């Protein structure tokens, strides 16, 4: 028999019903905590997946304002820029508004050089050779049951009309998970059907730079190039560009951060309450142990150990339960184009279990110190 053994039995055998309920409480809070942390991580992941050597140029007024296509060749001449591509947000609807996913009209040849897109099925040559062709992300193909050769009809409110694209390839990104849930088709196909007033206009230019360390200078040079023009530009790194969308949700993100903190407090209260009750019930036993010669530090260690074990078990069970939950949520989020990176990560799970164990130990601090401080005669008298 050891004191560790005694702590284990105190934690789990003394009052099994209370132990089970406490562990379940911790488990549920751990699931909620892990869920929120994963959502937050996924939210930021889109910007973190950005390549350091890509910069994005948009209209300085707003992303909704376009830029002349002619800017592309001028940007390409800025020292340090090795390749320029462009794209337009299409905003099409596939059969029903609920089937939301992102579509971009891209300059295919340059886009395939600037972005790291890998063909899972179909071929690059087929895509490049057919103006009516498109490539779709692997996630979209799985969701809608698309195969290479199928035709995807889209209705667009931004670019009126019915559009049809033949799938020439199913793709995924090597460094960007959002590609798996996006559809790309030829910008030229879009441009040829546009009225003159918006013909040859571009949503954003994406440039690849030879040296990521040169990006700040290249950014300045590009914007200087179009200063005082009819369409001034705003250039930034791809990461900064994507972070705008995250920042746009800053209130939500802050709320999620706060709620995840509140969850930890709830976890601490659940554990602290259970431990306080447990220690109070065995005040007499604490008195006996102290009388026999055990020191206050032994009593504290037993209580800390007990709290840590309850917290850790609840945390581990929560992480195990969170796995299928997060997989399901991740699939759903990706299917509606909300977040494409919601996935269960071992690192977050381990951190959650560790946090639960630490909170368990910390929550036992007050009852542990109180029990250890109690006068032996008072502790013995308490149970009489």
């Amino acid at each position, binding site marked *: 028999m*050891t004191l560790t053994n*005694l702590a284990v*039995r105190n934690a789990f*055998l003394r009052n099994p019903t209370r132990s089970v309920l406490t562990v379940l409480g911790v488990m549920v809070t751990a699931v909620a905590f892990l869920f929120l942390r994963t959502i937050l991580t996924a939210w930021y992941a889109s910007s973190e997946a950005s390549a350091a050597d890509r910069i994005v140029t948009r209209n300085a007024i707003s992303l909704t304002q376009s830029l002349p296509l002619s800017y592309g060749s001028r940007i390409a001449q800025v020292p340090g820029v090795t390749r320029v591509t462009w794209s337009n947000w299409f905003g099409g609807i596939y059969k029903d508004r609920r089937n939301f996913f992102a579509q971009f009209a891209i300059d295919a040849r340059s886009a395939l050089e600037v972005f790291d897109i890998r063909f899972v099925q179909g071929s690059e040559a087929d895509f490049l050779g057919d103006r009516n062709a498109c490539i779709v992300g692997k996630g979209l193909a799985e969701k809608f049951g698309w195969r290479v050769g199928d035709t995807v009809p889209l209705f667009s409110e931004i670019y009126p009309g019915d559009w049809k694209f033949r799938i020439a390839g199913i793709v995924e990104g090597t460094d960007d998970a959002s590609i798996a849930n996006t559809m790309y088709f030829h910008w030229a196909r879009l441009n040829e059907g546009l009225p003159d007033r918006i013909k040859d206009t571009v949503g954003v230019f994406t440039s690849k730079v030879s040296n990521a360390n040169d990006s700040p200078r290249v950014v300045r040079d590009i914007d200087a190039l179009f200063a005082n023009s009819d369409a001034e530009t705003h250039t930034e790194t791809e990461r900064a560009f994507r972070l705008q969308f995250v920042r746009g949700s800053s209130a939500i993100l802050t709320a999620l951060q706060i709620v995840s903190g509140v969850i930890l407090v709830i976890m601490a209260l659940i554990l602290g309450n259970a431990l306080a009750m447990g220690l109070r019930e065995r005040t007499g036993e604490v008195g*006996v142990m102290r*009388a*026999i*010669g055990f020191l206050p530090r032994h009593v504290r260690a037993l209580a800390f150990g007990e709290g840590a074990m309850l917290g850790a078990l609840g945390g581990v069970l929560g992480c195990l339960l969170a796995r299928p939950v997060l997989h399901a949520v991740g699939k759903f989020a990706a299917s509606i184009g909300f977040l494409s990176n919601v996935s269960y990560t071992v690192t977050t799970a381990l951190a959650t279990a560790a946090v639960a164990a630490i909170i368990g130990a910390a929550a036992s601090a007050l009852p542990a110190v109180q029990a250890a401080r109690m*006068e032996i*005669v008072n502790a013995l008298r308490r149970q009489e």
Partner: protein
Amino acid sequence: MAETVPAAQLARPIIEIRHLRKVYRRDRQELTVLDGIDLDVPDGAFEALMGPSGSGKTTLLNLIAGIDAPTSGSIRVAGVEIANLSETSRADWRAHNIGFIFQFYNLLPVLTAAENVELPLLLTRLSRAERRRRVEVALKLVGLLDRMHHTPRQLSGGQQQRVAIARAFVADPKIIVADEPTGDLDRRSAEEVLALLRTLNETLGKTVLMVTHDPHAAEAAKVRRRLDKGQLT
């Protein structure tokens, strides 16, 4: 005042108490529980402390056992002035010198009989094998070796108190203090417990101090003392 004077009293005192006072303060009121106690208990004695409720018997026992501190006076036990010891030193001193027996046994319900007996040995440097050997010897002496793997809930009150007695002497302390050890037991179990206390005293040479209300239990002791209103009479 002692009612009988056995030969053991001639031996060197293991407990020497001089001018002992214990005053409890509650709010602004002071309650003097022990007032000027002088007491010598020889090594190897078996003494019973009797007296009405509130007379200070348990307080005196707690002071001798080093789990309470006096307001004034001197308590020298086993050659050590325990009132001057720090909390840590006093805990260590108790672990080596005092074995406790309580009225309600106070066994840990999550541990088996053997593990409860082993508890004081966790504070020693004995190997696991040696601890186990000592536990078995102690349980054999109290006649419960065959129940060593039973939890307290699976034992009767008398059996639990015998386990508590085994726990009290397993670390080989010099003094056993027993606070109403038969108070919660039927007559037969009480007799068994008293017989064990006599064995600890006579066979193992332990000094036994027992607080009891029960005159019959007190008969088991060689010396009987009475406390009344905080003074030995």
